[in-house]
């Protein structure tokens, strides 16, 4: 149970820090009347509440106030709730940033990488899942074709990681070398692997005909 002390303290401290930011955002809104501060206020207050819910759940679990099966449900529910609340909170903060840059010519440049980043992140998660599954398939069958698929998806995964790195590092220049070029090379190598798979399949097909 002692290992839970670190997240407990960090959640408690996090709640206080986020509440301070919430207060500052509200005071800024009160002084200026700018809607952007209202968005920051909503974002930070939601993050603070999420952190507080996590703190309370850990406290319940550590204090053994709830039974073990119930504590598992409590932790899972609180994590799920936190996730949803955090998504809403970050959306408010992102909207606030968009509001800040709305009138500038860079508005598109600030929104475009965000969507690209989100899309690429989803792709990365999916590719990770696919790669892990294909590794499992290879270890089950030990077939050459399964190995080719595994290598191919692994290369696609690495290519995706490089694309994400490129987006976060050189967001103003979407075609910044060398990450862009390396990512493309890996992508092409993955396609070559898939071509090898096609050839392998066709060759096997021809062998069977004979």
């Amino acid at each position, binding site marked *: 149970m002692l290992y839970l002390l670190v997240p407990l303290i960090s959640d408690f401290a996090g709640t206080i820090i986020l509440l301070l930011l919430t207060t*500052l955002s509200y005071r800024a809104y009160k002084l200026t009347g700018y809607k952007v501060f209202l968005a920051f206020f909503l974002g930070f207050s939601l993050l603070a509440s999420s952190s507080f819910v996590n703190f309370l759940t850990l406290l319940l679990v550590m204090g053994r106030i709830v039974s073990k099966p119930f504590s598992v449900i409590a932790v899972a529910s609180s994590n799920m709730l936190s996730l949803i609340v955090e998504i809403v909170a970050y959306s408010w903060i992102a909207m606030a940033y968009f509001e*800040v*840059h709305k009138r500038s010519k860079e508005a598109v440049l600030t929104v475009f990488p965000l969507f690209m980043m989100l899309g690429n992140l989803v792709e990365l998660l999916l590719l990770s899942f696919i790669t892990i599954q294909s590794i499992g398939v290879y270890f089950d069958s030990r077939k050459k074709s399964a190995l080719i698929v595994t290598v191919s998806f692994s290369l696609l995964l690495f290519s995706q990681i490089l694309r994400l790195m490129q987006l976060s590092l050189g967001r103003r220049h979407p075609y910044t070398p060398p990450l862009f070029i390396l990512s493309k090379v890996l992508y092409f190598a993955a396609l070559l692997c898939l071509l090898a798979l096609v050839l392998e399949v066709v060759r096997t097909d021809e062998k069977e005909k004979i």
Partner: protein
Amino acid sequence: MKKRRSKLRILADILKVVESENGARITQILYGANLSYERLTKYLKELKEKGLLVEREENGVTRYYLTQKGMEFLREFRRISRFAEAFGIEL
């Protein structure tokens, strides 16, 4: 091209001049806050009505002083200004 100052910033600029002079004459505020006479008198009237400034006659010269409320406003403005800057917002 220079950006236009918000009304809040203009009011804060006036209060800053008054604070630095510790009792400023209208000409000092005029130069310090970089405003026309007409606009300055309009803003001074507003600041007096809000209780942020007081006007006093001293040896035939009108001087402006910050009130307690004015000092608190300026302190809060500086704090919020720093906070806003951190997020790329200009007041």
